[in-house]
């Protein structure tokens, strides 16, 4: 009887602690860091003949880390470490498509990361020569980020040849090569990409990007209408409302406001490019101070 009471009391105490935990709002959690993995050779030796499994495990770790860091804790992920992890995972199993797909989703919008991302994708293309996704990704990166339509077209053709039944390539290449409307092409590309993902946090990241692109596309169309009506581009976005072309300026999903850049293009306040930095170095500098 005494023991029963003690047990019940302890159970109650535990329930209270658990309830308290969610009130503390993560203050009890250790900081979340993505690990720096040992070199691929060491990983292969440790895997005892199960390279593919080791590769999958690294990818899973990256995926779960990203989900918790980005979608749940709402902190900035350590992109460079993530990339290094995925790079090692694809050294272990260069056919691991999950890694390429995840990398493209994460890094294709981070301009400084594009050269390494393309190197990664080319590694994949070597091992998965019949997979149309890889040339498709490469083409998008060359077109949108490196502004190299010739190489982009080359890769897009490769993708189309591997997957001739997909109408996506025709409309994409039409927009990329003839109409030259980048935003429209980017929306198309992103829609195609999002359709394939089943990872909620990656989806969240991509949808945010898609909303921004769609808003930009919407504003760009309004700018074009304004320009034909007034024979000059608008000086501010507010002019579009005064001219009665749009009701209101859509919200920027990155939290700021849309504005014109120096060349007069509509841009968001996204700080994604700054996220590509060396966390280790930054930590080191902080410690040194």
């Amino acid at each position: 009887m005494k023991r029963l009471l003690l047990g019940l009391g302890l159970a109650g105490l535990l329930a209270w602690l658990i309830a308290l935990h969610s009130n503390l709002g993560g203050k009890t959690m250790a900081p979340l860091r993505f690990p720096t993995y040992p070199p691929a050779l060491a990983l292969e030796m440790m895997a005892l003949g199960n390279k593919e499994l080791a590769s999958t495990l690294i990818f899973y770790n990256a995926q779960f880390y990203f989900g918790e860091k980005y979608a749940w804790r709402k902190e900035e992920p350590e992109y460079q470490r993530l990339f290094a992890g995925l790079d090692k995972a694809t050294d272990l199993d260069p056919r691991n498509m999950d890694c390429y797909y995840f990398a493209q989703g994460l890094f294709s919008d981070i301009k400084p990361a594009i050269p390494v991302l393309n190197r990664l994708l080319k590694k994949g293309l070597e091992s998965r020569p019949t997979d149309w996704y890889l040339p498709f990704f490469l083409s998008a990166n060359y077109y949108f980020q490196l502004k190299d339509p010739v190489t982009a077209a080359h890769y897009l053709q490769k993708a189309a040849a591997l997957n001739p039944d997909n109408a996506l390539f025709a409309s994409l290449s039409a927009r990329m090569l003839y109409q030259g409307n980048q935003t429209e092409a980017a929306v198309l590309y992103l829609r195609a990409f999002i359709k394939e993902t089943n990872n909620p946090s990656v989806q969240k990241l991509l949808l945010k990007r898609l909303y921004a692109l769609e808003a930009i596309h919407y504003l760009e169309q309004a700018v074009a209408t304004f320009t034909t009506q007034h024979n000059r581009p608008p000086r501010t976005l507010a002019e579009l409302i005064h001219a009665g072309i749009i009701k209101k300026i859509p919200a920027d999903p990155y939290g700021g406001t849309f504005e014109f850049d120096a060349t007069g293009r509509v841009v968001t306040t996204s700080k994604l490019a700054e996220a590509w930095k060396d966390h280790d170095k930054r930590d080191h500098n902080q410690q040194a101070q």
Partner: protein
Amino acid sequence: MALHPTFMIGYYTFKGGLRDRLVQSLLLTGLFFLLSTLVFSSFSMRQPLEVAINYSLATVQILTILVTLFLGLNLLSREIESRAGYLVMGQPISRTVYLLGKFCGLCLLSLLVVSFLGLCAAGGLLLVKLGLKDTPAIAWGNFFVAHIGIWMISLLLGAVTLLFTALATSAVLPFLMTIGVWFIGQSTQAVKNYLEAGLGEQQMPRFLNWLVTGSFYCFPNLSLFDFKTYAIYGLALPPLAVGYAMAYGTIYTMILLVLATTLFQHRDMT
């Protein structure tokens, strides 16, 4: 029906293995792991079926090897250490027959284990496939060959245990040394490739290079038996690679058996 004593010993070794608690629990663990394929593969973004095959083959490989190692410990090393072997060696049979019989039993046991786990893995994969749309077909032929490769590894390691058992007087030492051979055997190829690619030439002293080349020839190269990649991605299996691995494994195992029986002849059973 008068079986050759070798097979009689093999048969009773087999029986002993089946009644081994540790082996039974490892097999149960295997069953649990193979069922968890469903959960594990569901986290993949692009290739759940590939991940499922990958995961189940890795499970089969690790568990088959672990079962073989523990069987080697319990049925070979422990028996010789515990003097239960006196019973058999007091009979008019040679020590060679005794050792070969033990090895036969071990072969049979690991065949049973790998088939059992393989069937469970296949069942798990069918379940995974049922829940997926538009997945590529599973390359069952490659899947089967991958299991043969796993069995070959366990036979080789069984023969390694036998050799160390013939030499050592303690039961745990052969077990630990076999684990060491397993670790080294799995990585010689990778290390050699790494050195040959010239990646580490600057840092690597010359003697290390020799060491690696030496161990490449001495230790069994277990990566030869790894056909998992072909099974996972449904790649065309080169017959030469399979044939070479089988020939290599058979000859290596036979050399180990000859060495083990020779050394065992001259050993005092105290």
